[in-house]
């Protein structure tokens, strides 16, 4: 047995390129597995510990608010408020209509807006909430914060309360504030701005003293609010301060109830709007703020899982490729040792004992590959963790080496590859000793070679020769095809993945003519000459009618119905060819849908979509698809949409403008400011999204680099196999006087057409895989990503795959050239 192992070990030296390729593939797969899993687990562990230790909210809500059930008594909540003249008038009208029970839909709608604007929804229906809390076993408390935007920095002030049951603040360094004007700031903000404990900090003409850095435990995900959807450490700061300091802090106040179950959260982000969630309960309702809060606490789970799945799928694919290579090595080795195996069998050695000696290949390659991969993976895990942490505000435990991965990355590949090697060897040496010892037992010609010779009988000798060699072994042809296919998949991934996200950003923001988007609390009648006006109301598509057939949707499609005018100055809607398609809204029921809605739900032009407005099914015709990968907006005529929602005249609740007064630190009149629910600076948004997308591109770039390296290694191995396989043919042809060029064109190019075909098949397959994968990501990112490949990219890929193949061939031939011709032709 020992001698058999030594013999196999010596065989490794003859397969240097293949074994090195195999070791590298295992090393890369181990690197990816270790780096991704260690980094993700580090973040996950920190995250779950944080959720539990800080009692992070499970959800937030306002008591359920039904304007139709309001009484005149409820209006007393506004007594202390400084209402505008218009609002006082509305309140008076509503008091009268409530008393007479004659309020119409629009009046109640306006009343709802008023309750929302003045945060009065908090104090309605509290007994029902208490009953629900007992029934569903959760506890809750009121939480308040103030928002202030100053010089484009978004400040959130939170009063410090160490007795809080939910969302306990997490102190990283220093102390919590005890004196007036003392504050803690976000660690990421402190780092980005170079602020230290003890520094002073001026805001609102008040000088604050930084006494510590602390995380707000409900701000895990990089989303501050729906107004500031993307986290940027330089422009977002969360400050804890004493109650007195908080009271004096000027800013827009938000109050909301936060709640936490006594047990684990019984639903996740994907079920957010499902029937099983707490949000379906009558006693409470959730606000846009609730959604943002839920996302920033829970969405991290949805982000990490696909990353982990992706890295694990990738690793398994590599394991399959490694399996194929090891089959080739073992097969080739046994073929060349056929006589020896026959002798051993005739001497009475068991087939299993002989087969076991070939386990030396998986053992050596897994030991070497996994060890290299483990150390590189652990080395990369820390920077990768930091990439994640730059997205999530989670305090982590100190980084340490995790030895449990050693066993995982060794055992699985070892078992799989050892089993494959053993089975291959058993299959090859199962024949009787006499057969194995017989001369020429491996020179039989298969059906395909005979068939190809018959078909090509009339063609040139060179062609016949080529294909007879290619079909000589169907197994090898299949292996070369599969492995080239895998390499083709990786190259396609490289081509479509490189800079994908950044290009989408450029495409999306590049042509925007407006600088600010302003959202209002309520509906504004009249015209705003300096802006494009939009009436945006959330709705959902319940059905679609395609080619005259009604299709009930499995799940309603959430959309924003967006009323627009036909004379837009700043906002543009373009199709994929860059043509303006606003004019396609030709009638009241014509709508334009986004590429995202179209792509994710298979809705095309001329389909009809059905939405429910005021209890009535409204059929809208898709007149065009505009190029937007993020949006869920359905654009239609604003006047008609106002009518559908029972407004007497056209109204709007959002504007797109270039007027700098709408900048986050612009100067707006108090009366207008009060009506504004949110202001977006498009350029800031672009900057913020770009910074996040750059990080996504970085992750993708890492995948791309790995894919490129792997496809190169795979093609080197394929080339080496081809040269090795034809070693004898090449030598014989050289003896007969054929030139290298002639040998190259006949023998070494035999698999070129198969490699090219495999590559071309791999392109649509990879596009499909990436589309499926990105659909999962797109759900999280709220975007549909177009995956295309241009002809020039296909050519580049083709040159890359052939380049790697020929380079591999050149390397392999150099080794071959060292063998003397006379030696090569000796009897085997």
């Amino acid at each position, binding site marked *: 047995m020992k001698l058999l192992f030594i013999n196999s070990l010596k065989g490794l030296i003859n397969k240097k390129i293949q074994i090195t390729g195999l070791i590298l593939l295992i090393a890369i797969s181990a690197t990816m597995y270790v780096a991704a899993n260690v980094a993700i687990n580090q973040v996950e562990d920190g995250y779950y510990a944080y959720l539990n230790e800080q009692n992070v909210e499970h959800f937030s809500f306002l008591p359920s608010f039904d304007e139709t059930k309001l009484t005149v008594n409820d209006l007393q909540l506004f007594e202390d408020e400084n209402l505008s003249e218009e609002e006082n008038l509305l309140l008076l009208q509503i008091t009268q209509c409530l008393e007479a029970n004659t309020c119409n839909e629009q009046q109640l709608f306006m009343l709802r807006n008023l309750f929302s604007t003045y945060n009065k929804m908090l104090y309605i229906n509290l007994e029902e909430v208490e009953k629900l809390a007992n029934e569903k076993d959760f506890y809750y408390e009121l939480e308040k914060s103030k928002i202030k935007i100053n010089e484009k920095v978004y400040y959130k002030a939170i009063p410090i309360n160490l007795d809080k049951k939910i969302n306990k603040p997490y102190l990283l360094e220093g102390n919590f504030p005890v004196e007036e004007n003392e504050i803690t700031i976000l660690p990421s903000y402190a780092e980005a701005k170079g602020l230290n404990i003890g520094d002073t900090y001026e805001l609102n003409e008040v000088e604050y003293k930084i006494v510590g850095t602390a995380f707000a435990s409900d701000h895990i995900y990089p989303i501050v609010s729906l107004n500031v959807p993307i986290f940027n450490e330089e422009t977002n700061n969360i400050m804890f301060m004493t109650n007195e300091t908080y009271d004096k802090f000027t800013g827009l106040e938000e109050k909301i109830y936060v709640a936490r179950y006594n047990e684990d959260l019984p639903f996740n982000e994907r079920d957010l709007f499902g029937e099983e969630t707490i949000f379906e309960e009558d006693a409470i309702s959730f606000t846009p703020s609730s959604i943002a809060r839920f996302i920033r606490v829970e969405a991290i789970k949805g982000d990490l899982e696909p990353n982990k799945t992706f890295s694990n799928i990738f690793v398994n694919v590599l394991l399959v490729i490694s399996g194929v290579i090891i089959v080739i090595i073992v097969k080739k080795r046994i073929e060349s040792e056929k006589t020896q195996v026959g002798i051993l069998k005739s001497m009475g050695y068991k087939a299993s004992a002989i087969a076991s000696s070939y386990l030396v290949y998986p053992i050596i390659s897994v030991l070497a590959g996994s060890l290299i991969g483990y150390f590189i993976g652990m080395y990369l895990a820390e920077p990768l963790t930091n990439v994640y942490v730059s997205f999530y505000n989670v305090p982590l435990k100190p980084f340490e080496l995790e030895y449990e991965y050693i066993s995982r990355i060794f055992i699985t590949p070892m078992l799989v590859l050892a089993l494959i090697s053993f089975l291959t060897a058993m299959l090859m040496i199962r024949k009787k000793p006499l057969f194995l010892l017989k*001369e*020429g037992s491996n*020179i*039989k*010609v298969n059906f395909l*070679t*005979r068939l190809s*010779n018959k078909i090509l009988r009339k063609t040139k*000798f*060179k062609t*016949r*020769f080529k294909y*007879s*060699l290619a*079909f*000589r072994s169907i197994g090898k042809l299949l292996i070369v095809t599969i492995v080239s296919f895998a390499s083709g998949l990786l190259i396609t991934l490289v081509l479509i993945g490189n800079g994908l996200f950044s290009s989408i950003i450029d495409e999306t923001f590049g042509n925007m003519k407006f600088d600010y988007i302003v959202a209002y609390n309520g509906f504004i009648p009249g015209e705003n000459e300096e802006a494009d006006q939009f009436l945006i109301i959330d709705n959902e598509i319940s059905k679609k009618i395609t080619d005259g057939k009604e299709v009930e949707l499995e799940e309603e499609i959430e959309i924003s119905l967006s009323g627009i005018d036909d004379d837009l100055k700043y906002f543009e809607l373009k199709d994929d060819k860059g043509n303006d398609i606003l004019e396609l809204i030709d009638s009241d029921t014509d709508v334009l849908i986004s590429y995202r809605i179209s792509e994710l739900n298979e809705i095309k032009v001329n389909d009809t979509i059905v939405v429910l407005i005021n209890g009535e099914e409204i059929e809208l015709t898709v007149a065009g698809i505009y190029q937007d990968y993020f949006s869920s907006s359905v654009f239609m005529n604003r006047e008609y949409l106002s009518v559908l929602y029972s407004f007497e005249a056209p109204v709007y609740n959002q504007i797109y403008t270039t007027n700098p007064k709408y900048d986050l630190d612009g100067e707006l009149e108090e009366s207008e400011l009060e009506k504004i629910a949110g202001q977006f600076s498009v350029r800031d948004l672009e900057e913020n999204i770009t910074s996040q997308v750059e990080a996504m591109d970085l992750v993708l770039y890492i995948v791309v680099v790995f894919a490129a390296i792997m496809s190169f290694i795979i093609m080197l191995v394929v080339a080496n196999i081809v040269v090795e396989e034809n070693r*004898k*043919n090449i030598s*014989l*042809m*050289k*003896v*007969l*006087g*054929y*030139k290298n060029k002639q040998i190259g064109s006949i023998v070494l190019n035999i698999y070129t057409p198969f490699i090219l075909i495999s590559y071309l098949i791999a392109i649509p397959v990879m596009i499909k895989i990436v589309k499926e994968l990105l659909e999962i990501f797109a759900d999280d990112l709220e975007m549909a990503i177009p995956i295309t490949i241009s002809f020039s990219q296909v050519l580049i890929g083709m040159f890359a795959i052939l380049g790697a193949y020929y380079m591999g061939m050149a390397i392999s031939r150099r080794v071959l050239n060292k063998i*003397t*011709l*006379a030696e090569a*032709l*000796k*009897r*085997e």
Partner: protein
Amino acid sequence: MAIIYELKKAKKSYGFDVNALDNVDLKIEAGEVVVILGPSGSGKSTLLNILSGLDTLTNGEAFYRSESLSKMSENELLKYRYNSLGFVFQSYNLLPSLTGRENIELGKTHQNDADLNNVIKKVGLEEHQHKYPYQLSGGQMQRVAIARSLIKKPDAIFCDEPTGALDEEIGKIILNELQKINKEEKTTIIIVTHNPAIAKMGNTVIYMNSGKIVKTEKKKIKYRLMN
């Protein structure tokens, strides 16, 4: 007769202490049948490899028709082998995925069918030409190898133990085949063997031992069948 091959103080060493050829001087006339005889390790295969341009000398010189083989470039050596030489090996060295006819075509591509048919007829393979090597007997495979050499109308055919894998009867037929070619085509035949029985078919018999030529016998022989 013109000299086709000449060796002057030819030396081939492997490492420091193994001399496969040790100061060998040799002249071979064109149109001869030369049998190189000797035990294993005597240097006879090395001699064949040097003359056929498959290997190079450590010292000394080798000439083909007065041209120095040592000075030929890799490409010139390829051209020399492609145009002027035929090879017959003990293990046939046929390509298993090509039929007998195609293996013959491999000797020199772009042959016309008439020449190809002619050669096939000459070696008696008409009935077996479309069979694959695994469907042929040892003797038939060796005939394919001979035809592969003949197709290029070579100056010389190098045979390395051509009957080593064949039984006695078939071996004789093959040797007769080679003798016939020598007579009809005036092709120089150089046979390397350890079988003394083959020596009688040679005009020149070179005995080798330990890398040296220990004896050279020259004789005039009439063409006759081996028996």
